[in-house]
């Protein structure tokens, strides 16, 4: 087979000739049909999941907004009695938590799920059931969390949940557990979505869409998802520790037994500060898409903006301690964070200048609704940024810390930086689903919101400087606080009317017209999401030569519609999507992807049930739900992954023949597993940090003198178990590479007990020596490591049995080996982590003694 002349080059003829075979489109329609009626929840099409996802995020925005209105009503005049002290605490905690965790992050993820496939011109992202799972888990878990408010059980300690306030002695009820388990669970959903987004952006771009031609929204979402991968593990780990402390009295944060509440603050803000940028980056990506369209010119400084996005992603991790200025951290350490705070303003400034320059060089900008929101964004965000610089100055922060000045700053940044771009984006992209939203309602909403927000939050700077602390349910008269507060409250209601306009507009005018080809390209935009689309996305997958393909080739829409680009039909008779290389976007294979199913819906419900039942302490029911979730996940994997080579290879156009199945490091499954292991590794890094930090604050010894420690044979046994199981898997991999599938079953059945033995020996060693997790933070850290390792052993246990069953069913062989590879990667990781844990809990303390 001689390779044809590069079919991706602009000079090559269009990949597929006319006329197209009879029935090609009908077949696509049939395969990608949306399930209707009672089967609708099984839907996996990204456009439907995306729209449901955005809608749910907006629902939470409105719910949290209503809480804010009640709070503002309470604060309108001094000494008001609508909310008592306790209820006010629950309100602001729930408001902040919902806005941050159930609205802001999910809304951005939702926009990604909805827009990315269209923007990349992929039929769908590689794991459609994963994003559907993320959505259902989020919906169920989120509603349950909100419901806690009606029973007076909502968390009441502020959205960052500082211990010791959240420790058992001060928060004996289950309010804090609602936060810990409810939010911890939402994070899992966010991570699931992030994996889909990362792999999708890197591997599902249209042929020829090199990194350099990728729309900036995709860059932003890539950084966004990568940040979730590295930031969310910190909060997951922190919640695990706090929950272990609350449930079993393991003293991680209790100073009388060697714990330290600062540990929570470190872990929380290592997540919490990047969180602000996690919210902001996708919004910036949206702005970078909308402004060029409205100015009818490519964005000025595309490369600089891409660089700024990547740099922001990194630098924002260097800022966590700037929320802890007042907690007695060494001066020099604080200066590192101040430096990072200033460094991060460089990329932000770069983006602001790129947007302004684009508006300046663009042709006459029409002041339509999306543009208005963009201008509002720039105005409010820059103002918020200025107060941010003030807050970043250390001495000023000591003054403003915990006053309404901070409340004002935080809302300017969040509303300016995220809500305005999001609303602009809704108006901008609504036509890709069906038709335009109302221009009139849009304008009303903008001006009401813009006025209302400034009216609400500008006076708060003043009340803050006059000394009004945050998180108080009322204030005395005669301190000059009456006027600012009354104006704030009026402003909040003005803004609420603005939000109501958006909601009414969406209800009246938003339509999903799948099959109708979308609402055309009303803004004459240049990127691929404006191609006519259907349930199967674009009719054929365009060959891309630049950043604004629709501007560069005015006939592209027509060519794509005629089916003259890649993969105009189906080659396997199933749902499929083209997988391309990560940098150059050269087609590598056609991946078969799963269709509608109940499996992932049940899995999501089971996971949600597990966490909610744990919260209300019905342990047996929780375990039942957990088992349901595991079974449903296995059913989902069994029916929806690793289809094997349904045929040898297929031509997708332009003489390009690619396989329809691929195992090994180029497969999307491998990539997803690697991303998952990055998440996992980051959790483990947090575990290392936990040990290191607690060692540091326990100068009397780590372990403290007199701690019972196991005999050395136990860790040695354990190390042998881990090593043995890893070696066996490595051998099985080699044998499979040589075509000997018969080794899989014996290898797995031997390696599994070895791994379990490795874990068991370590656990037994500590337990039999008499070490108990409740005695001291050293012991609880040791058991935290065992807890985490035990979880991995349990997962490997399930995976190994699943792999064995697949093998017995004849679904694993030297070619069809994606399942084997994924299990192997996770298993090797678990064994390595086990060994690292042994070093951490046995060798390191020994060496330090």
């Amino acid at each position: 087979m001689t390779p044809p002349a590069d079919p991706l080059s602009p000079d090559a003829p269009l990949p597929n000739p006319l006329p197209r075979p009879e029935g090609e489109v009908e077949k696509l329609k049939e395969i990608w049909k949306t399930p209707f009626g009672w089967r609708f929840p099984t839907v996996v099409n990204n456009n439907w999941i995306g729209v449901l996802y955005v809608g749910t995020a907006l629902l939470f925005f409105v719910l949290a907004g209503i809480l804010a209105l009640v709070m503002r009503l309470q604060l309108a005049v001094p000494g008001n009695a609508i909310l008592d002290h306790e209820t006010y605490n629950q309100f602001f905690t729930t408001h902040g938590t919902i806005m941050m965790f159930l609205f802001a992050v999910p809304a951005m993820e939702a926009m990604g799920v909805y827009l990315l496939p269209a923007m990349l011109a992929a039929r769908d992202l590689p794991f459609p059931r994963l994003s559907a799972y993320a959505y259902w888990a989020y919906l169920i878990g989120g509603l349950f969390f909100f419901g806690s408010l009606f029973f007076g059980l909502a968390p009441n300690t502020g959205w960052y949940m500082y211990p010791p306030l959240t420790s058992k002695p001060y928060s004996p009820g289950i309010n804090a557990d609602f936060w810990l388990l409810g939010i911890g669970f939402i994070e899992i959903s966010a991570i699931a979505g992030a994996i889909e987004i990362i792999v999708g952006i890197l591997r599902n771009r249209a042929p020829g869409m090199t990194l350099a031609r990728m729309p900036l929204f995709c860059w932003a979402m890539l950084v966004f998802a990568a940040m979730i991968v590295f930031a969310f593990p910190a909060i997951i780990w922190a919640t695990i520790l706090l929950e272990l402390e609350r449930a079993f009295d393991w003293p991680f944060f209790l100073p009388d037994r060697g714990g330290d509440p600062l540990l929570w603050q470190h872990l929380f803000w290592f997540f919490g500060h990047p969180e602000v940028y996690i919210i902001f980056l996708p919004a910036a990506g949206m702005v970078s898409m909308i402004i060029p369209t409205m100015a009818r010119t490519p964005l000025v400084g595309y490369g600089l903006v891409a660089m700024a996005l990547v740099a922001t992603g990194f630098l924002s991790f260097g800022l966590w301690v700037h929320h802890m200025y007042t907690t007695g951290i060494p001066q020099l350490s604080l200066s590192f964070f101040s430096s990072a705070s200033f460094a991060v303003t460089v990329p932000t400034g770069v983006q602001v200048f790129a947007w302004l320059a684009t508006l300046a060089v663009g042709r006459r900008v029409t002041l339509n609704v999306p543009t208005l929101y963009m201008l509002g964004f720039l105005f409010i965000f820059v103002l918020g940024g200025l107060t941010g610089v003030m807050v970043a100055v250390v001495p000023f922060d000591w003054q403003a810390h915990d006053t309404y000045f901070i409340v004002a700053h935080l809302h300017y940044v969040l509303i300016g930086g995220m809500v305005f771009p999001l609303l602009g984006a809704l108006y901008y992209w609504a036509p890709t689903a069906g038709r335009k939203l109302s221009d009139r309602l849009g304008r009303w909403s903008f001006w009401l919101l813009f006025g209302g927000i400034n009216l609400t939050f500008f006076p708060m700077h003043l009340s803050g400087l006059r000394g009004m602390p945050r998180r108080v349910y009322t204030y005395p008269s005669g301190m000059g606080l009456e006027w600012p507060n009354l104006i704030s409250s009026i402003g909040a209601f003005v803004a609420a009317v603005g939000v109501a306009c958006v909601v009414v507009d969406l209800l009246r005018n938003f339509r999903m017209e799948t099959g109708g080809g979308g609402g055309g390209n009303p803004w004459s935009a240049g990127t691929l999401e404006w191609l006519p689309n259907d349930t199967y996305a674009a009719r054929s997958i365009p060959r891309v030569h630049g950043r604004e393909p629709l501007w560069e080739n005015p006939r592209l829409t027509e060519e794509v519609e005629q089916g003259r680009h890649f993969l105009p039909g189906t080659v396997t008779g199933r749902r499929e999507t083209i997988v391309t290389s990560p940098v150059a976007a050269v087609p590598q294979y056609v991946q078969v992807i799963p269709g509608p199913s109940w499996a992932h819906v049940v899995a999501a419900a089971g996971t949600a049930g597990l966490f909610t039942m744990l919260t209300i302490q019905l342990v047996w029911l929780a375990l039942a739900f957990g088992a349901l979730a595991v079974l449903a996940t296995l059913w989902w994997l069994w029916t929806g992954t690793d289809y094997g080579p349904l045929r040898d290879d297929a031509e997708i156009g332009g003489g390009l023949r690619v396989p329809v199945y691929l195992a090994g490091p180029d497969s999307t499954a491998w990539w997803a597993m690697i991303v998952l292991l990055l998440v996992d590794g980051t959790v483990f890094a947090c575990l290392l940090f936990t040990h290191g930090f607690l060692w540091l604050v326990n100068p009397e010894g780590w372990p403290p003198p007199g701690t019972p420690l196991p005999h050395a044979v136990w860790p040695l046994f354990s190390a042998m178990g881990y090593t043995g199981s890893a070696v066996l898997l490595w051998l099985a991999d080699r044998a499979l590479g040589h075509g000997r599938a018969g080794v899989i079953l014996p290898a797995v059945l031997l390696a599994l007990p070895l791994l379990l033995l490795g874990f068991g020996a370590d656990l037994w060693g500590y337990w039999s020596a008499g070490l108990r997790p409740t005695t001291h933070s050293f012991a609880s850290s040791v058991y935290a490591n065992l807890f985490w390792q035990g979880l991995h052993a349990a997962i490997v246990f399930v995976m190994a049995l699943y792999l064995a069953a697949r093998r017995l069913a004849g679904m694993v062989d030297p070619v069809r080996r994606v399942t084997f590879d994924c299990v192997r990667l996770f298993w090797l990781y678990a064994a390595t982590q086990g060994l690292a844990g042994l070093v951490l809990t046995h060798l390191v303390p020994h060496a330090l003694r």
Partner: protein
Amino acid sequence: MEVRGFAPIKAAVAGMVVWAVHFGIVYGITGIACERGYGTRILLGQPLIPALVLAATALALLFVGWIVVSAYRRLDSELSGEDGEDGPQFTVWLTLAIALLSALAILWEGIPVLLVHPCA
């Protein structure tokens, strides 16, 4: 043009990875030394913390310099590609831009050690 490779993406973020490691190290050094009361120790005639922080900073800058130089070489050798800003040049350019910003950030982290009393 390399078809499969992920390497250009790794190279592109390399500068920021150096920044992150540097940040972790200097923060760790300061935190540990101050907590354990080594703030006034002297090492080889130099105050301990500033010496270590400056050494780490110099080392990090060397790494970034190396990233810049090797990217610059690739820029030369691939200049023949006709893709211009659109092609492999872009990732090389990105590598350079990110590395330069990282160098700035590293420098910014290192300098305060000359101005601030470490453990106050």
